[in-house]
């Protein structure tokens, strides 16, 4: 249905702010969402992501700032005047209308003569054409969710907002709907802005993820970028788990690698993994304790006697090993008391046990440096 439509314009938020009395829900956000992209707004509850979404929908008035859709400033327009539609967290389907009438609601509001045909097409897209005559409450949660989706996309908005649309579904259905949503987004080519607190969901579905915290944008980027190069401790911990080693300083022998010092041990880091703009002197440089080396649990290996030598080695004691089928997660206690989390896939390699002395290793290009702490 949308094969002929042009890519919608970019959505721009300029210093967008929303205060509730003396609480700042959204504190001056600047953001560009490219037209036709699948964009995720990720953050813990209360971070302002839903408020941001509601301002874009026109259901909440910004305290200050601008919202631009393509070349148009839509800040002052009402919800019903915007080419933006929303899939609500609770679905908010009209209980007194049939599924078909729900989907056709927006089209009939805009006096579309062929609303019935278009609504049926949208229902076919979400595979619910056979339920057109039923009432929403006769459908399962997953089906209601798809009706809500059809009701929004049938209007062919420039931007589709999804407010935690999968929150009420069970895990298996949620996985299915994630794939389904991505398929539909690619099919219709509408800009999707998906609000969620589930980092896995955001990374699975979105081209670009914006991490929000306390009303501000923490970091924006492709999922793999955010995961491998988090800019802040918050992002490092919110997107999966991280082992953070506090650093005492660096020494720079020149070349591709630098050496970071943690608890008197030299750790080799690829220069490309340093945050942009970080200057490292050739001598051991004292840096404040707010600099950390971060290593993801799945990037740590337990070195066996026959393994090739690793550039980085840390010895420790296994204090816990838990096996979940796909992988085993170990807690390894370091001599200075810190426990590192290590995840090893169930790939036939020998397993360690509680009480074993092990040596951990990782590649210099698999760690990241955070120049800021919480």
């Amino acid at each position, binding site marked *: 249905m949308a094969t002929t439509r042009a890519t919608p314009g970019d959505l721009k938020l300029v210093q967008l702010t929303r205060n509730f009395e003396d609480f700042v829900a959204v504190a001056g956000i600047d953001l560009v969402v490219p037209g036709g992209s699948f964009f995720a707004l990720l953050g813990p509850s209360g971070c302002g992501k839903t408020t941001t979404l509601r301002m874009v929908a026109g*259901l909440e008035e910004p305290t200050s700032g601008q919202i631009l859709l393509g070349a148009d400033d839509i800040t002052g327009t009402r*919800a*019903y005047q915007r080419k933006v539609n929303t899939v609500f967290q*609770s679905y*908010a389907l*009209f209980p007194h209308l049939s599924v078909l009438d729900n989907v056709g*609601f927006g089209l009939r*509001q805009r006096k579309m003569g062929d609303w019935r045909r278009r609504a049926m097409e949208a229902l076919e897209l979400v595979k619910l054409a056979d339920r057109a005559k039923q009432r929403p409450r006769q459908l399962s949660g997953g089906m209601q969710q798809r009706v809500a989706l059809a009701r929004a996309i049938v209007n062919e908005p420039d931007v589709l907002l999804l407010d935690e649309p999968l929150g009420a579904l069970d895990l298996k259905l949620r996985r299915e709907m994630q794939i389904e949503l991505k398929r539909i987004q690619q099919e219709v080519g509408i800009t999707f802005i998906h609000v969620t607190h589930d980092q896995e969901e955001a990374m699975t579905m979105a081209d670009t993820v914006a991490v929000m915290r306390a009303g501000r944008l923490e970091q924006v980027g492709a999922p793999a970028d955010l995961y491998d190069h988090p800019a802040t401790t918050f992002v490092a911990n919110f997107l999966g788990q991280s082992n953070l080693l506090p650093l005492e300083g660096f020494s720079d022998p020149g070349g591709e690698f630098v050496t970071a010092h943690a608890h008197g041990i030299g750790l080799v880091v690829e220069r490309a993994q340093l945050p942009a703009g970080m200057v490292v002197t050739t001598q051991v440089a004292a840096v404040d304790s707010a600099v950390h080396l971060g290593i993801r649990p799945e990037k740590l290996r337990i070195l066996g006697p026959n393994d090739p030598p690793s550039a980085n080695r840390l010895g420790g004691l296994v204090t816990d090993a838990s096996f979940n089928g796909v992988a085993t997660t170990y807690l390894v206690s370091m001599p200075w008391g810190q426990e590192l989390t290590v995840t090893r896939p169930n790939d036939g390699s020998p397993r360690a046990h509680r009480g074993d002395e092990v040596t951990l290793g990782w590649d210099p290009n698999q760690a990241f440096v955070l120049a800021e702490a919480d």
Partner: protein
Amino acid sequence: MAALTQAAVGAEAPVSRPRRRGGLVPLVLLAPALLWLVVFFVVPTISLASQSLQTGDIDNGFTLTWNFAVYAEAMARYWPQFLRSMVYAASATLGTLVLGYPLAWFIAHRSGRWKNVLLVLVVAPFFTNFLIRTLAWQIILTDNGPVTGFFRATGLTAVLQAMGLTDNDSLLGSQFAVICGLVYNFLPFMVLPLYTILERLDVRLLDAAGDLYANGWQTFWRVIWPLSLPGVVSGTLLTFIPAAGDYINSRLLGNTQTVMIGQVIDAQFLRVLDYPIAAALSFILMAAIIVLVAGYVRAAGTEELV
């Protein structure tokens, strides 16, 4: 559900329905109410029916003569009062709806922590006797009172007169006063069912309607109003039925040209002592209301109320 129950009972136990306690428990529970209804409703209704078909007078006694002609006679003599009662009751119902709907919405969604206080205020008039409340309206609408003064100063008395609701530049003793009294007295019966239904309305649906290009007015007509219909139906019934039979408001606030059917029945029973006519009028009123209500519920019911 049946399959579930069977599965739960298990394979070894024969499929057994939940044990019925002789089917007597519901009857025992119903008995007091049934007895009450038989003694105080069914028996009097039958006796009233029989009374309507009797002839005679108070001095020589009445005998049952199956005089069905009394119904035709009652209608011929009192159809204007019947019609008037229906028109007044309908006007009062409309009035309570127009006043009560915004009030119920406000209490349900905008009153915050004042919600309970406002609900008590809606019911507060019931703490006073019906008769006294209506008498108070005589004082409110009295000729030298501020309300009449305001209506005269703003020229509203002339408007009411032009509409035929009052006969002169007084407010009391007019159709206007009677309908005002009815609206006032039955307002809580409209507000409470409306409040109950509007309070349950999911306000997120309003966001959804706005998101789907409906402005405030369209949202009301296409979402709020259809979802509130059950409250509207029960509110209008609770208002219309007693208002149609009311005989206090027209007596205290009206004049000889505003006599309602309730007043006629009252007078025939208690002063004229023409029991057959009074009984026949009561039956006609009951039948008229049942027919009207049945038609109304049917029309509203086709919308498949939620």
